[in-house]
């Protein structure tokens, strides 16, 4: 399931919903992305996430299906927030459940790598020393490229 929302979410609740299903789950991996306190040495005041409504949901749906094709998953969830956030606020949550722990780990990392470079979100940071759009990292491109060659 995917959700794009401005509201916060509860990690424990989301994991509980997934684990309480009538499925033979062996392990659940989760990754939560947080707004950092500092960007280099600048204190972050706010981070505002802009996205492309419509396209975001389509892209998230697509990549969730891709993860479910590549790995044997019992369930998966992507929640991505947009709007104005503060340091320590949660930005994104990815949960993957599988009978095999490797499948849960790998698919969760795959989804996060993908979100970093392929989900239409942009981050505006307001820091002590002014505002700027967060630049994409070329290291993130490299991470996501690995998955196109890597076997499951």
């Amino acid at each position, binding site marked *: 399931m995917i959700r794009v929302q401005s509201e916060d979410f509860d990690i424990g609740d989301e994991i509980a919903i997934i684990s309480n299903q009538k499925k033979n789950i062996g392990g659940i991996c989760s990754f939560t*992305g947080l707004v950092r306190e500092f960007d280099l040495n600048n204190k972050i005041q706010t981070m505002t996430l*802009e*996205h*492309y409504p*419509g*396209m975001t949901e*389509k*892209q998230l749906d697509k990549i969730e299906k891709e993860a479910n094709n590549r790995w044997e998953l019992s369930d998966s969830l992507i929640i*991505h927030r947009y709007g104005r956030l503060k340091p320590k606020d949660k*930005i*994104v949550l990815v949960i993957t459940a599988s009978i095999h722990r490797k499948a849960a780990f790998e698919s969760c990392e795959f989804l*996060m790598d993908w*979100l*970093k*470079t*392929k*989900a*239409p*979100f*942009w*981050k*505006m940071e307001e820091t002590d020393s002014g505002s700027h*759009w*967060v*630049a*994409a990292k070329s290291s993130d491109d490299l991470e996501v490229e690995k998955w196109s060659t890597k076997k499951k």
Partner: protein
Amino acid sequence: MRILYFANFREKMGLSEEIIILPSNVSNVRLLVEWLSARNELSSTLFTDHELIRVAVNQEIVEFDTEINSDDEVAFFPPMTGG
């Protein structure tokens, strides 16, 4: 044709979307970028460095050689930074 702008494109253009009448010779993304770039100085700055431009046509990321027509929804934005 409907054009959407996000992030620094929206900010610099001062608008989040516009409707343009597509000249008949602007048949793919590259030609559209060049056409936009030629409109004025501001556009020229934004649309010159192709490395910093990402384009979606009908909500799918595409390459610059993708063909477009006036019914398409085209969006311009910088490299994405989700997650």
